[in-house]
């Protein structure tokens, strides 16, 4: 009997904790909700008052004007191109290098791997100035190339792929080797298909990183027509007086966040699983 009442008390406590957490989650969402609501109100109304969580009077003008302005859609396009190409390149480059480190024998392998891992210690802030000077010298600022290439050489991607390939049982390749399949065939036909979970994780995190990248695009893409959304929204914050066009600013923020939100909602399972996978290391 005593055990049963303990169990009931435990369940009640569980429910109370869950309830409190749910309340906290609503509080957590409140700023987002408020911003979305403001983006749906006329600017004149927002001049009067920004309070309230009901979009009345309601308008879609802020979003319509956004489309007419063309700047935000263009920034969005730049962000998409940069994020997609960067993700593809990181996946190709990291998985190739990871395969070599995990499966092939060659001289100075350990030394080379250590040299690559040493790159993990270098924070981007300690190389972005010389990078800027180099790319200035090549005359390549305000290009997609400049936004993408410095982000392709990421040691963490090589590390993850090497670890993952090492965890794949060797027997799977040995069968192919008996058939005299080339290394490239083994890599493409056996290793890559087995690595879809690792590639998904690395790809998602690279995409989110690219989308949210700030310091490097801020110094490299200096022309407003080459901004990514992250830099563009930052420029709006510094230039706009918050009291005028508030609704438009909020609509820009909401619109610019839609793609990454969509990606998150579709792939959230993989993102959380990916965190778990990396934590296992």
């Amino acid at each position: 009997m005593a055990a049963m009442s303990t169990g009931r008390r435990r369940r009640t406590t569980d429910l109370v904790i869950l309830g409190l957490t749910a309340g906290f989650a609503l509080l957590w969402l409140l700023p987002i909700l408020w911003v979305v609501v403001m983006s749906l109100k006329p600017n004149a109304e927002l001049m009067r008052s920004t309070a309230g969580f009901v979009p009345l009077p309601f308008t879609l003008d802020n979003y319509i004007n956004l489309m007419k302005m063309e700047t935000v859609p263009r920034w969005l396009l730049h962000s998409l191109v940069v994020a997609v190409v960067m993700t593809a390149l990181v996946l190709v480059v990291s998985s190739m290098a990871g395969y070599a480190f995990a499966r092939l024998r060659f001289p100075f392998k350990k030394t080379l791997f250590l040299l690559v891992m040493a790159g993990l210690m270098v924070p981007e802030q300690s190389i972005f100035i010389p990078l800027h000077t180099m790319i200035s010298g090549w005359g390549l600022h305000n290009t997609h190339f400049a936004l993408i290439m410095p982000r392709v050489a990421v040691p963490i991607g090589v590390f993850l792929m090497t670890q993952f390939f090492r965890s794949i049982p060797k027997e799977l390749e040995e069968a192919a080797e008996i058939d005299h399949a080339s290394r490239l065939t083994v890599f493409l036909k056996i290793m890559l298909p087995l690595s879809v979970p690792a590639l998904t994780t690395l790809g998602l995190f690279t995409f989110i990183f690219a989308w949210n990248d700030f310091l490097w695009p801020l110094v490299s893409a200096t022309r407003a027509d080459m901004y990514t959304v992250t830099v563009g929204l930052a420029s709006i914050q510094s230039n706009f007086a918050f009291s005028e066009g508030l609704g438009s600013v909020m609509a820009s923020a909401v619109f610019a966040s839609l793609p990454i939100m969509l990606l998150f909602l579709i792939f959230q399972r993989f993102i959380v699983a990916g965190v778990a996978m990396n934590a296992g290391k």
Partner: protein
Amino acid sequence: MATPRTPARRKEALTALLFLAPFLVAYGILLVYPFFKGLWMSLHDWELAGNFREFVGVLNYEDLWADPIFWKAVGNTLLFVVMTVPSMTLLALLLALAVNGRGRLKGILRSIFFMSSVFSVSVVTLIWSMVLNADNGLLVPLFRWFGATPINFLGNATFAMPALTVTTLWWGVGLPMALFLAALSQIPPELYEAAELDHAGRLTTLFRITLPSIRNTLLLVLVLQIVGQFQIFGQPHLMTQGGPANRTKMLVQYIYETSFRDWQVGYASAMAFALFLLMLGFAMAQLWLGRREDA
């Protein structure tokens, strides 16, 4: 390592080189070379635009040592780390414990707390600059209701730093929470069954089973947070511009301003190298701690 002896070995090494080439070329040109070039630049009086550069030896480092704003920025950054990392870790742990387990509602709550981490820094700062605004912010009606004057958090010497901390917590708690959730899911259920048989209370179970089981993750979260928060840039750059009176000026922000506002890239490179040394110090401390854990 010996050189490859047989043709087969030589062919394998050549294949490896081909597989490694794309990464190594990018790595060499865009990471290793800039790193040493940065070191070289830090020994010069070097301007961002134009051709003015003069070798000055360690003069930049001497100036750095005597620069009060540099030390202010280092101090502010450390203060920010001290304010953010423990609170972030605790909040992430509490949330993970609360939303761990099965059930639709818990799944939704997990998504909500994780969601804010996919926003870019400029969206987060836009949202929170609005929320904390003293004229038409989210909290203004609350102040009015109490009959108080709204506080201009971001322009206030006392509240600016806590405001950046709250913004950062809201933005960043998702990742450490997910790390904790992953660790919690790996605790063997038998441990909890044993505790239940012993009628162990909730807190006893937490301190005797849960926390010891996720100790390594706790360490990992702390290290990741320290390294990550040390590099804070966007929040002060966009929300306070380092103000009021340099109260929230951070190290990376000072590096950015020195190089891209004042054009002193030589001096900024010296600062960037100092940042690298500080981060290296953290990494070494982590290795040292990890070794002690294993022993």
